[in-house]
């Protein structure tokens, strides 16, 4: 909770608020509030997180104001979540506090914002502007607000976006009482490669173009602090180390943590999309240096929708993607050689009922992550969703002692989905829009 707050103190927010004239009638206030319940189908491997049901809720009000014939737009979106068990998941953030000004063929966007880059569904490789609010949603789709100055220009030959990113946001992680959580809790004392730590000013640029033969292309480059830290196990004291060698266990009362290490990286990204006769072909690729050896990663595949299934109004969409990465195995993501198969049933009814089922299958160690999501609307302002996530054929979660024993023996194995393997859950969520 505190960590979210401290990163916001960069002055930008305050400066922005003062810059926006507070007079005019075109103010709009709205938002959403939600309740979430989770049931975990297995016992937690971590004694601090020994529970099977969890309740949570969030509120996300939105304030908009536009003036100057809509050439100026102000947006403010704070966000707060309360969680029954995990004090880290109880957190707040400013998702957006920004001023957009539209000029002739260009626009400036200043303040805290969220920007999405990418075309694929399996892994958002290219998307790098915002930090992931990992503790909020396990799918990584929820992002923290990022302070920025963004200039965008639209020309016949494409759209160019330039970003100056002052101030860095640390990734959020579940606490000791969280489910799912990391094998060791993640420390608040992050380490930075940059001497400016979280005050380094990062840069990014992106070019995108759409061709009327169905081809869409984007090229991007990011230079700055990686949004994606390496988690390094904390050093042990001599006493802890001796106990570990003697008994194989860390002494009781020893609570080592992961230290997140944020390197300065350079990442070049490519997004390609080609639409032909209802087949949407997608490719995302990155090359990153600065975090160990340079590595490359790719996510490519297609999306196709069968419309009017069996003479009903239902559409069935298919998503198939292959996700690959050539990073050194010990550092590789769990998605280093994986196949995503997703199906989406869209019923096209009054309630907008949808069912989405997906499986990510690791072709090397056969781990499977399965997700089922369904949602529908009730009336005009209420949306309900049911979600289930299961992990099968995974490695086992490691205890802290095991993790350090492996480190001592210099065993450098990739844990894959092991750490979250015993956190299968079913979730119901109700969102009210006001």
């Amino acid at each position, binding site marked *: 909770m505190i960590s979210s707050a401290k990163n916001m103190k960069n002055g930008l927010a305050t400066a922005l608020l003062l810059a926006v004239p507070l007079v005019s009638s075109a103010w709009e206030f709205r938002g959403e509030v939600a309740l979430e319940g989770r049931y975990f189908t297995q016992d937690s491997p971590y004694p601090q997180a020994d529970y099977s049901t969890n309740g949570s809720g969030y509120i996300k009000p939105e304030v908009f104001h536009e003036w100057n014939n809509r050439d100026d737009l102000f947006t403010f979106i704070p966000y707060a979540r309360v969680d029954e068990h995990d004090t880290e998941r109880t957190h707040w953030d400013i998702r957006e506090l920004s001023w957009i000004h539209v000029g002739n063929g260009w*626009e400036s966007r200043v303040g805290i914002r969220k920007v999405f880059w*990418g075309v694929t569904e399996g892994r958002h490789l290219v998307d790098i502007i915002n930090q992931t609010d990992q503790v909020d949603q396990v799918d990584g789709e929820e992002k923290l607000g990022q302070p920025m100055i963004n200039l965008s220009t639209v020309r016949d030959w494409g759209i160019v976006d330039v970003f100056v990113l002052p101030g860095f946001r640390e990734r959020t992680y579940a606490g000791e009482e969280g489910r799912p959580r990391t094998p060791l809790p993640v420390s608040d004392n992050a380490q930075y490669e940059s001497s400016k730590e979280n005050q380094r000013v990062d840069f990014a640029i992106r070019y995108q173009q759409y061709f009327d033969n169905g081809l869409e292309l984007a090229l991007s480059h990011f230079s700055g602090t990686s949004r994606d830290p390496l988690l390094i196990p904390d050093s042990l004291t001599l006493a802890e180390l001796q106990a570990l060698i003697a008994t194989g266990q860390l002494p009781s009362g020893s609570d080592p943590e992961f230290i997140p290490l944020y390197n300065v990286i350079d990442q070049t990204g490519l997004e390609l999309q080609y639409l032909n006769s209802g087949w949407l072909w997608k490719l995302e690729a990155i090359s990153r240096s600065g975090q160990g050896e340079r590595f490359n990663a790719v996510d490519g595949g297609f999306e196709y929708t069968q419309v009017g299934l069996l003479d009903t109004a239902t559409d069935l969409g298919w998503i198939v993607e292959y996700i690959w990465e050539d990073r050194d195995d010990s550092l590789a993501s769990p998605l280093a050689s994986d196949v995503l198969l997703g199906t989406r049933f869209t019923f*096209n009814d009054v309630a907008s009922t949808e069912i989405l089922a997906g499986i990510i299958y690791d072709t090397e160690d056969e781990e499977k992550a399965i997700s089922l999501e369904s949602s529908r609307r009730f009336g005009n302002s209420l949306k309900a969703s049911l979600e289930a996530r299961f992990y099968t054929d995974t490695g086992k979660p490691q205890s802290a002692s095991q993790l350090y024993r492996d480190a001592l023996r210099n065993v450098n194995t990739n844990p894959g989905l092991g750490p979250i393997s015993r956190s299968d859950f079913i979730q119901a969520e109700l969102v009210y829009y006001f």
Partner: protein
Amino acid sequence: MNARLLPAALLMALAAPAVLAQTPEEKGLEIAREADSRGEGFGDFQADMKMVLISKSGQTSDRELRVKTLEGTGEEEGDKSLTIFDTPRDVRGTAMLTFSYKTRDDDQWLYLPALRRVKTIASRNKSGPFMGSEFSFEDMRGQEVEKYTYKYLRDEPCGELTCFVVERYPQDEDSGYTRQVSWIDQQEYRTWKVDYYDRKKSLLKTLTASDFSQYQDKFWQPAKMSMVNHQTGKSTDLFWSNYRYDTGLSESDFNKNSLKRAR
């Protein structure tokens, strides 16, 4: 959805008073072309739309959206349009950008505000329901003359007016229809009624337009359109309001940047 949208779509055609020995096909095409030309030259317009979905048992559900359209000028290029969804509230802020073309499929992008993501619409869903209503995606799109073949059937009184009754056949193999029969008045070429026949050639839906007003001394637009599905008993009433022409829209209002801040 797009372009001159329904209202103009409805303005189908008029036959120039019979030229020599015209075949019914030639006369049908001529009516379609005349109606189309009467919708041309609008430049740009904006309008608000409210849809009322009515179930078989009479339960209603509302959808509100706003449409901005820029007339196409090129040979191949059709209109460009931006549709912004206001209700139901869970889709509030969602916006759709459409580039229509005379002879090929439209390019469409959807902006999802929660994810700040622009997605290309790949689905060739033409016959599927638009927002759960009785209007399908193809009903909501720009009705380019080239996308159909035609046949004039007969003249028939419609209210105080006399209508041409014209049949048209979609050329698009993904269309949900085999034919559509339209009633078009001979005075102003407004479409008052359309019967839609499904792929099994049975009567599927009937559209009735009413409360026409003329804008810019030229363009006739209905304030109400009702689509009744004869096979399910469900219907959708569509109310147009706040029609504005010459609102100063330009190309720069129809790109991915403007889509992301459409609101």
